[in-house]
């Protein structure tokens, strides 16, 4: 155990390639909803090629933390940088933090492929239309090129024959695979997964995890909020265990899961067995 601890630099626990460029950096992030402090100072560094899993019980703030990275939630304080570019913030006339330039936020969001717990595919568009919507209308990719890439992605997630089907006619597992393909279609720098299997029937979890595992194997940068402990342990380079809005423990998954240092992580892991 001592050997492992000394082998890993303390400021970047378990980074896959320790000197790779930083993809996402979060410093001292706080988020409150009214009187309720949900995130109380969390930092994280994900380098290119890293798979970072964020685990914790419900209410630990892990989803909120993820949603602060693409500003679906506006942090109360702290800094978020994507690809070395910090999201500029200011205060509005009520003293509330707001982005200084929404266009910067919109631009940065197109480099973050988000996958939601409840899929959130656009119901009025077919699967293929869902995949080309952002490339064509936001990124201004030529339509033919966007379609070609989308069809390749659908083939990859095993949905080639469903491209003209509307999302409501797909199973949950198929919808989530389509949603992952939609995220990949924007050619993101980083993939953000917000509990991607939590809304699925148990028998459909495997097909979605397989797609995510393939992405991890090709060293895609990913930040993954999950309840799937076994999966997090297998695919992650770095695990962050959040408890009540703070990092209770972080490090390399093998080490953390084998020898949890904190009592809370021990209890949490025991409860998820």
């Amino acid at each position, binding site marked *: 155990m001592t050997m492992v601890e000394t082998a890993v630099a303390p400021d970047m626990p378990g980074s896959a390639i320790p000197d790779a460029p930083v993809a996402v950096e979060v410093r001292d992030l706080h988020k409150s909803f009214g009187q309720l402090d949900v995130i109380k100072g969390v930092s994280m560094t994900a380098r290119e090629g890293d798979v970072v899993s964020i685990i914790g019980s419900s209410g630990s703030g892990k989803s909120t933390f993820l949603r602060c990275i693409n500003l*679906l939630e506006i942090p109360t304080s702290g800094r978020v940088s994507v690809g070395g570019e910090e999201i500029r913030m200011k205060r509005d006339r009520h003293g509330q933090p707001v982005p200084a330039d929404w266009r910067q936020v919109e631009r940065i969001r197109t480099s973050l492929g988000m996958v939601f717990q409840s899929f959130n595919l656009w119901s*009025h568009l077919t699967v293929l239309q869902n995949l080309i919507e952002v490339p064509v209308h936001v990124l201004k990719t030529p339509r033919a090129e966007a379609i070609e890439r989308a069809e390749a992605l659908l083939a990859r997630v095993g949905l080639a024959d469903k491209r003209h089907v509307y999302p409501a006619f797909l199973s949950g597992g198929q919808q989530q695979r389509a949603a992952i393909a939609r995220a990949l279609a924007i050619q993101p720098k980083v993939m953000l997964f917000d509990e991607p299997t939590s809304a699925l029937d148990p028998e459909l979890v495997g097909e979605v995890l397989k797609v995510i595992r393939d992405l991890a194997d090709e060293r895609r940068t990913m930040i993954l909020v999950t309840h799937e402990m076994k999966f997090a342990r297998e695919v992650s380079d770095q695990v962050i265990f959040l408890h009540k809005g703070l990092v209770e423990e972080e490090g390399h998954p093998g080490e953390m899961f084998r020898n949890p240092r904190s009592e809370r992580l021990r209890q949490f892991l025991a409860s998820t067995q």
Partner: protein
Amino acid sequence: MDEILALLALEPPGWGGNLLRGLVSSLEIAFGAYFLGLVIGIGGACGKLWGGETTKAVLDLYTTIVRAVPELVLILILYFAGTDLINLILDYFGREPIDISGLVAGIAVLGVVQGAYSTEVVRGAIQTIPAGQIEAARAYGMSPWLRLRRIILPAMLPFAIPGLGNLWLNATKDTAILAVVGFAELTLETRQAAGSTKRYFLFYIAAGLLYLMVTLVSTYVIGRIEARVRRGLPRHG
């Protein structure tokens, strides 16, 4: 029978041509007012959902008043007070008063009435869209305008079409109220034909059939539109 056909003939002394011209005028006003109302409705719904407090208060006042006051009264107020107001403004700037065409006035007046109802229909429909779909549009970097145009408006249509369809049928019938301000739409033309010939029953039945025809065609078209925009929704529930 020959006499009835003679009365309904398209060429004078028959009155059929007048009735059809009235029908065309009614439809022009209905189309114009409906689309004006739809534009007001989309703007009004966005204002009510995402506007500031002043915007919301003004829109609440607008929809409440328009929906509370009988349409006949509203049309009299808006038509006479509206033209007076415009001419007062023109006079203030030293311009000659103008004669506002019945068509433009009719479209404007009914459009304002339609707009209040459209606002509520569109607002309700937008609120029915699962929030996650709008959130996904935000997460993928769509600007507010793009979100509205590409996601929110098309996604709310299946929920709005029944209400908007009803509003279209109302629009076609509300044109009849414009008879009171002397606009030569179908109902006024019918009254003139009936009054001149004393054949009230014949002409009002004829007008009723024309209105019915408009409704039947509209219902068919609305049904087709509804089926089309509901393609993405599961067929049950």
